[in-house]
């Protein structure tokens, strides 16, 4: 279980998180919505300890993440797969080496035979062919890079998957492919997922619950139905902007 209580974070004069409370129960998929620059990715990076809060508590499986020792944090991270916005693939390595680095167990990482079969399996899970492993990130399309990023994140069989804008920059067809993949992975691997996105349509397709981060706080947390029925003007404005076809006219 992931629990954030009163998390505050500021960069210089800018308050990014102003006392955020946020929970994710085991087995569920939660989409964290919010406009660009609202601090969604910052919140996500607190969960696996890439950022430390100025104040507040971040707990994963009951462990206080900011208080963990280096070795404990490294161990925790092996249970949390993180999918970066632009893939964050290591461009000096081919796809095989990129995914192999996701094998958190060192003995498995060094076992070349195991690594080869695991890389092929992870590529299959993200609908990519085994031949992809020989390519370098520069030879991949945007959608393929995202899928390789997901393959790397699941290589170590994590318990949690954190997605940072998995569909941003993709055309609607490829965005749907990634959304389907997120749902498929949840079913096949039973992972608990947190997906940061400003793609409302995708979030409604994929998530069991939604949360809207606005002005450095979570203004609503609930099921897709509760979001649709919300009368909060901030929620309505966010949903209507995304769903209203006239907003695309310009």
């Amino acid at each position, binding site marked *: 279980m992931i629990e954030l209580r009163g998390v505050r974070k500021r960069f210089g004069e800018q308050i990014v998180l102003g006392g955020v409370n946020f929970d994710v129960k085991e087995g569920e998929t939660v989409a964290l919505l919010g406009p660009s620059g609202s601090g969604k990715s910052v919140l996500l990076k607190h969960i696996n300890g890439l950022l430390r809060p100025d104040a507040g508590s971040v707990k994963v499986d009951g462990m206080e993440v900011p208080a963990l020792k280096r070795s404990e944090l490294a161990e925790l*991270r092996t249970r949390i797969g*993180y999918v970066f*916005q632009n893939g*964050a693939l*290591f461009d000096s390595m081919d796809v095989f080496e990129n995914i192999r680095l996701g094998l*958190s167990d060192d003995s498995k990482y060094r076992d070349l035979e195991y690594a080869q079969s695991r890389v092929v399996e992870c590529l299959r899970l993200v609908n990519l062919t085994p031949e992809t492993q020989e390519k370098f990130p520069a030879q991949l399309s945007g959608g393929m890079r995202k899928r390789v990023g997901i393959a*790397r994140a699941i290589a170590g069989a994590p318990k949690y998957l954190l997605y940072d804008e998995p569909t941003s920059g993709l055309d609607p067809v490829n965005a749907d492919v990634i959304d389907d993949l997120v749902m498929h992975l949840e079913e096949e691997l039973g992972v608990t997922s947190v997906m940061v996105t400003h793609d409302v349509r995708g979030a409604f397709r994929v998530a069991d619950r939604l949360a809207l981060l606005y002005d450095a706080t979570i203004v609503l947390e609930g099921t897709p139905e509760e979001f649709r029925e919300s009368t909060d003007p901030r929620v309505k404005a966010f949903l209507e902007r995304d769903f209203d076809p006239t907003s695309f006219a310009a």
Partner: protein
Amino acid sequence: MAAADFLPLRFIGRLVLGGLAHVGRLSLLGAELFRGLREWRIWLPRTVSEAASVGVGSLFIVLLISGFAGAVTAFQAGYQWQTSLPVYVLGTLITETIILELGPVLIGLVLAGRIGARYAAELGTMRVTEQIDALESLGRSPASHLIIPRVLASTLMLPVLVVIADVVAVGAGWIGVKQVLPVTDWDFSYGAQYFWRPFDAWYSLIKATAFGWAIGLISCYMGFNAQQGAEGVGKSTTAAVVTSSVIILLLNFLLARILLNR
């Protein structure tokens, strides 16, 4: 008016705080590197490939610079030559100038640009494209994967490149001086050996090792802490080259004072 009066104080305060922040971050990086040394299975193979890349990649520029530097040293020695001195002194002058000073410092400064810029740009780009965050999120240490191999490669390869540069520059100086003054091979060889002390070679190697370590550490530090996209990478790359060059000159001064004037 009151606010304007405080501006210099604020400037000095920011400068001091900025300096202390660098010292703090560099110390943390040092501790990180020390811890990362235990993961030798990770950094050792990467160090070998990085060292090969640095060594082979820098060889052409090292040969070019050392060849010209040796020849020009010889021509300038010929230009300033006084006929009252025995010609074998030219062998001493050229050899000692190159091995004690010109070889390590010139190669150090050139490689601060070549290797330092490369390291800072590579790590800076990895930082702004979240590749370093990705490495950490996989529970892996950026120190053992990225920094230790680069720092060790530059520390180990600079002495090798300086030895090559010293040999080539002395050779070029030997050939060059024969073009401008009536110096025989025996004169040059006799002069080169007359004042030669084995410590001179050690001194050149100590300087090269210190310069290589400084280039690797400073450039990796600058790249690792790059911020704000392409502009941040550009700034960190420039800072890496400038700071490495200044540190090389400072180390050169300190090592000369400590090792040559004992």
